[in-house]
């Protein structure tokens, strides 16, 4: 990856935007900023950043909508800035395709840690491949194919699939997955896992509502199986 990660920060409040830009720049990121969703989407096309930090409450098209529009064409990581007062925000945000979220008032250090964790998900670490039915996970090329067709996975989805595929047939708890994939501390939000599993199922399963690969293990978590 690029040695200096480039970020796109979409935030309408001037003070927050300036402060976060300052803070993130000091952490060693290249930061581009936009005040509205429309500007953000335009900048995204021009600059191709490595990651987007996206405020939920935006004038015009809101953060969720921006997120959905990006996901239509792009798999680049998105971190939401939410007001946790509304738990529903988190759920909607994760459903519209965000990889992670940070609650305001956000500490620059926490945001930096999350950014780095998300960026690390795309790094390759092994050079073998695994096959689950029609699904082939190529750890060297960091690609996943289904029936020979390339699947467009976000780095988070890919990392989740890699972690599951590393322990085939073994159930991993949501908290374990949060540590492995999101690098969250022990207090990770298990909804991140659930939302990501849903998105992943939609891409890799034949019938997402009755999964044969990524199975739910009640009372524990999730497990990757080879279909019989």
């Amino acid at each position, binding site marked *: 990856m690029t040695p200096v990660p480039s970020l796109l920060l979409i935030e309408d409040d001037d003070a927050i935007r300036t402060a976060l830009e300052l803070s993130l720049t000091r952490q060693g990121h290249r930061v581009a900023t936009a005040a509205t969703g429309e500007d953000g989407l335009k900048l995204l096309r021009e600059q191709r950043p490595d990651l987007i930090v996206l405020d939920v409450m935006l004038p015009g098209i809101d953060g969720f909508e921006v997120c959905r529009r990006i996901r239509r064409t792009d798999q680049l990581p998105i971190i939401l800035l939410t007001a946790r007062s509304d738990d529903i925000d988190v759920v909607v945000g994760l459903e519209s395709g965000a990889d992670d979220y940070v609650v305001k008032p956000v500490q620059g250090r926490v945001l930096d840690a999350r950014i780095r964790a998300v960026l690390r998900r795309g790094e390759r670490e092994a050079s073998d491949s695994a096959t689950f039915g029609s699904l082939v996970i190529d750890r060297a090329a960091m690609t996943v194919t289904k029936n020979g067709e390339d699947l467009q996975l976000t780095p988070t989805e890919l990392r989740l699939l890699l972690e599951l595929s590393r322990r085939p047939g073994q159930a991993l708890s949501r908290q374990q997955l949060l540590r492995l994939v999101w690098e969250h501390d022990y207090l990770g939000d298990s909804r991140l896992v659930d939302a990501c599993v849903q998105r992943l199922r939609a891409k890799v399963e034949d019938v997402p509502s*009755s999964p044969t690969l990524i199975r739910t293990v009640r009372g524990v978590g999730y497990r990757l199986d080879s279909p019989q």
Partner: protein
Amino acid sequence: MTEAQGGVRGWAATRKGHLSRLRFTSLRLRLVVVFGLVALTAAVSASGIAYWLNREAVLTRTQDAVLGDFKQAMQNRAGTLLPHPTQDELQRTAGQMANSSQRFSVLLVARDADGKTVYGSSGALDGFSLRDVPASLRAAVNKRQKVDSGNKYAYHLYWQRVTDHGTPYLVAGTKVIDGGVTGYMLKSLEPEAKDLNSLAWSLGIATGLALVGSALLAQAAASTVLKPVQRLGVAARRLGEGRLDTRLRVSGTDELADLSRTFNDAAEALEKRVDDMAARDEASRRFVADMSHELRTPLTAITAVTEILEEELEAESGSIDPMIEPAVRLVVSETRRLNDLVENLMEVTRFDAGTAKLVLDDVDVADQITACIDARAWLDAVDLDAERGIHARLDPRRLDVILANLIGNALKHGGSPVRVSVRASDAKDGEGAEVVIAVRDHGPGIPEDVLPHVFDRFYKASASRPRSDGSGLGLSIAMENAHIHGGTITAANSPEGGAVFTLRLPRDVSALTEGADREAEKGDA
């Protein structure tokens, strides 16, 4: 256990119901009794008078007829006898006399020529003899009266009513003037007695009917009064239970309708007052919620910038002017405090608004506690007594908030070592399995008068207490978090010294959050 309690409660309720109904009927009972007494007095006196008048009328009429016939017969038959008739003549005459429409028995007494007393009886009634005639009557009959202007006859007709073996009789007697024949008659009054008896029965039945009727009337009257009273009682109780929209239907213009109208007015005023207060309360809550929301935006900017200042402080000395270094430190630390305060305020407004949600996960309780202590670098100060393997389904983040507040509070006020112990209680009948976490410190304990308030918002044990880092919301938030799990926290002083906070949480909270699990179960096709 629960069932037994339920039974006892049920019994008590039934008993209470009975008591209230009993008390309630007393007014009804009084009305019925009074109505009954009035009806009884009226009916008894009316039928008594009626009976008495009837009785006299019937008896007098019969008596007059009988006595008239007897007198006639005495004159016509006995008067024609010789002064000293024979036994046969007397007997025959008596038979003729008795042969009248009135069917009475006749006994004639006279002296025959030899001066012997002879009797002549009609024989219709068995053994009508002089023994049946009361002595007083005989004496009156045989007594010779003085004849003067006011009394034309020497002998009069006398009569008396007697009862023999339960049958009433009319006995009469007279002497033929200048004849020497004394005649007695005996007439059974049984038919008349029977008539009067049936009259008495009828009157009795009428009285009974009047009594029943009055009781029914009393009941109806009681109902018309008591039903509105009862409705009023029910409405007042509902109002007391908090259903402020309770109103009574007002019908009529009587005093009870007035009372109902007054009740409705009072209820309306109360409802309005409560609504006003609720609205004011709601407005102030919304204000706090909005305010903490608004505070967050500038705070986010300040926090981000403060971190830069903080890094400057941590960096090699010299990068910040020593003159302003204390000012920067103050800004950094107070910003953090402000952050915590706003975060806690928002948490509280979420609970108040009821928008707080549970995000459930299966966790090992001991692991959670260890992680909570570890994350805050409290490992040295906390003595953990918990075995791994106690699993629970709950919101780990909220459990962490509870634990951090309880342990943090214990460390701040009680001092280390803080002892945290965990045990699991199995499902007993009526209660689900629980996880019980006790946090005990070794401080001076909590004063008894403070104990009930430790979970109050912004409650400070004393005004002079040194300002602590806490926002004053920690324990209250911990309690709210326990409640949303369906659990609770209790505070007490340990007999061995120090305060003990005991957290009880159900081991499976899924029932509280229907649907939270649905998504996870969908996978198992």
